[in-house]
């Protein structure tokens, strides 16, 4: 479960320190809030490769306001699974210290890139005054890296599931070989035939067999 942010008081005016706005891309201050370490590092890497060198990743949600004030980011990314998004919005709403970043709906004419971001599972807050083209480039990067992560995650899930299924089938074959005195090949043939007859997957039939065997034990 995600961790709660440290509460932020309405009068959080201390630690106000603001550097001059640096204009080169390399110096653009980007803060990335993501409790998923893998995903955060995928995006961080992407941003660095694209020449953004001033990227800070925050995974620990305590003292977030302090971190934001210290880093004084021009762009903040937060993953959409994070319930602390509401906390972040209050921070921007009430804090007189944090330069008010505004949500990524900077320009409503560009709703497609916003839609892509939400679909990818990321949300961005950007300080006022940043040029639209600069924002778009970073947002596109975040979207592509979040999507890359989802793809990676799905592939891993698929591989894990395949492994699980293979194990199940092995166990089901073992049961048939033992109980019915079949060869391995015949046991698999029987599973496959049952699957075809019942219009199910071999792994599903194997699962029922393993469950049934456990019940009858």
């Amino acid at each position: 479960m995600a961790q709660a942010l440290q509460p932020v008081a309405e009068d959080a005016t201390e630690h106000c320190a603001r550097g001059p706005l640096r204009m080169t891309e390399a110096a653009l201050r980007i803060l990335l809030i993501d409790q998923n370490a893998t995903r955060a590092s995928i995006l961080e890497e992407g941003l660095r490769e694209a020449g953004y060198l001033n990227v800070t990743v925050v995974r620990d949600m305590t003292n977030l306001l302090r971190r934001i004030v210290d880093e004084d980011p021009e762009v903040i990314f937060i993953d959409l699974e994070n319930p602390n998004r509401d906390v972040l919005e209050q921070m921007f709403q009430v804090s007189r210290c944090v330069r008010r970043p505004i949500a990524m709906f900077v320009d409503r004419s560009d709703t497609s890139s916003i839609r892509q971001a939400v679909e990818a599972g990321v949300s961005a807050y950007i300080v006022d005054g940043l040029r639209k083209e600069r924002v778009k480039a970073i947002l596109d990067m975040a979207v592509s890296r979040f999507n890359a992560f989802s793809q990676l995650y799905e592939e891993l899930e698929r591989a894990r599931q395949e492994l699980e299924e293979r194990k199940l089938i092995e166990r089901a074959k073992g049961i048939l070989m033992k109980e019915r005195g079949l060869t391995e090949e015949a046991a698999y043939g029987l599973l496959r035939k049952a699957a075809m007859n019942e219009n199910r997957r071999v792994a599903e039939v194997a699962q029922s067999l393993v469950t049934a065997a456990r019940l009858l034990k």
Partner: protein
Amino acid sequence: MNIILGFIPLLDSASLVVAVERGFAAQEGIELTLVRETSWANIRDRLIIGHFDAAHLLGPMAVASTLGIGHVRVPLIAPFALGRGGNAITASLRLWEQMERAGAVPGGHPRLQGAALERVVAARNSAHLEPLTFGMVYPFSCHNYELRYWLAASGIDPNRDVRLVVIPPPFLVDALRAGQIDGFCVGEPWNSVAVNAGAGVIVTATTAIWPMSPEKVLGCRPEWAQRHPMQLASLLRALYRASQWCEQAENHADLAQLLAQPRYVGAPAELLRRGLENALVLRHGSPAAAIPDFYVPVARAATFPWVSHALWFYSQMVRWRQIEFTAEYVAAARATYRPDLYRAALGSVIADIPVADVQADRFFDGALFDAGDLTAP
């Protein structure tokens, strides 16, 4: 047509769940897909970009989006209210002990509880202790405004004497137990969850502060409503019938089981039932106390989107300096709530549908909010 609805796991998402699970949507010839969300910001964004056709929404959030506070200005409308009440204010055990010593009693009138809290706060101020911290769920929420209203009416300045912070509901109980906050204002089942965990005591239901106080609405974009008037009307009728079902006592056990499922609210059915039956356990181990009208899904025009509610939210936004007072904003706030769409859908279903768009509301301190009399503070 499939209508996609976002919701946050709370007791007052009940009529959305029931519309799907007990066939009221199907009766209207519509198919609803419910999508559970983790933050109000996500609900708003996905509503705005069209991922959701409509959503379980904080009433003040619809107004804030329409006025463009805290976000870019995107008009949203509220053609239906998802019942009334359902919120309470809970104190940590430590704070409750101090309040009891200062005169609070279990289930006491909010005036009595407020006076006790004021004494605790004054004592802390004169001892130069850190101010008390209260949690709520979003800057533009009924919880924020109800809590502020009660504090201010009790002589406590919500900006100076205490700290108000946003904490997502699932983290509130832990924050209370850890001493990060001293109390909170939130919708059910989260007050009952805190009581049941032995972490807090319910100080007052917010319906004691403001009887029949508004809460969530069904929110959508005006463009969606315009493009799909028939679907919207079907949706409102399905939700109205679901709300009627939710209010019937014989359905409460079933409804609590339904909401308890992890894909919906995911809290113990026994705790959800307390809110549904208007009988809250105020303190762990105590018998349930009857709280009349704690949560009202449908009776007394509970689903009617009173324009006066939108105007009260706007008045509180002005009061707490979230936005300035202008006639243009009054008009925009007013246009957020859409009784015309409600009447178009339900005029033939509800015999005593309200003919006025505004009504006067009276608060626990005797104050009257008259929406017809909205002028600069």
